[in-house]
């Protein structure tokens, strides 16, 4: 079987009319991928500034409950409560590192490309999975 989809309008129509459930799954996955890109960028910002690995390993993207039918994701820090001090400049070095703000701004500046890439990857994977059933 082969399916040909041309352009974003085709994708939107197909997802809205033919596969609304798949659309929900894809938006969830795509938002999580964008959050993962921000978490990855933040971890890269931390390199050389954070002594232990607790903050780096504790920084991750998490899927959150849908809001108004739209997938939600967030970047959360586990265990390393001191992230706020480093982020806002209240740490022992007194430097405002802004790991997360800089990461968010960098990803959001290129959000179209990042979200499209994530969406297409997830769409291809989803089609392959459904086709293989």
């Amino acid at each position, binding site marked *: 079987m082969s399916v040909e989809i041309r352009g974003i309008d085709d994708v939107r129509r197909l997802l809205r009319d033919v596969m609304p459930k798949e659309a929900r799954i894809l938006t969830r996955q795509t938002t999580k991928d964008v959050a993962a890109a921000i978490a990855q960028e933040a971890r890269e910002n931390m390199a050389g500034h954070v002594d232990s690995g607790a903050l780096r390993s504790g920084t991750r993207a998490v899927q959150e409950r849908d809001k108004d039918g739209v997938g939600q994701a967030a970047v959360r820090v586990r265990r390393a409560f001191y992230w706020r001090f480093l982020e806002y400049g209240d740490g022992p070095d*007194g430097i*405002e590192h*802004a790991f997360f703000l800089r990461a968010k701004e960098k990803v959001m500046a290129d959000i179209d490309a990042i979200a499209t890439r994530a969406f297409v990857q997830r769409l291809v994977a989803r089609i392959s999975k459904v086709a293989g059933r």
Partner: protein
Amino acid sequence: MSAETVIQGALFSALSGVGLSVVDSAQQNRDGSDASAFPYVEVGFVTIGAFDTAGETGFDYVARIHTRSRSASMKEAKLIQGQIYDRLHRGALTLVGYLHVLIQRERSEIIRASDGSFHGVCEYRGLIEKQP
């Protein structure tokens, strides 16, 4: 003048105009800063991204505004954050060489610093356009 300094200057003027004590970045205690300077507001941290269109050059920025208070409660910091919100959120800024498009608050919180003072953090996102 660069967009960075223009934005910072506009924020400085706007917040000074409502009677707040505004600095770029406060001196550290270990450098001999004076505790009597509290409360004050820091406006130095601004990140800037491109907001260009085919015909215009612009900037999308986030200004992180810090409020420092040594009051016995968080109330003082919250009141200052309210003053900042009233002045900046969807307000007007005067920028030399640039057109102000929009500024609005994205988030706000207060944390307790290790020296016992209160540290308010507000993030304002704005858009400006370079004048032709």
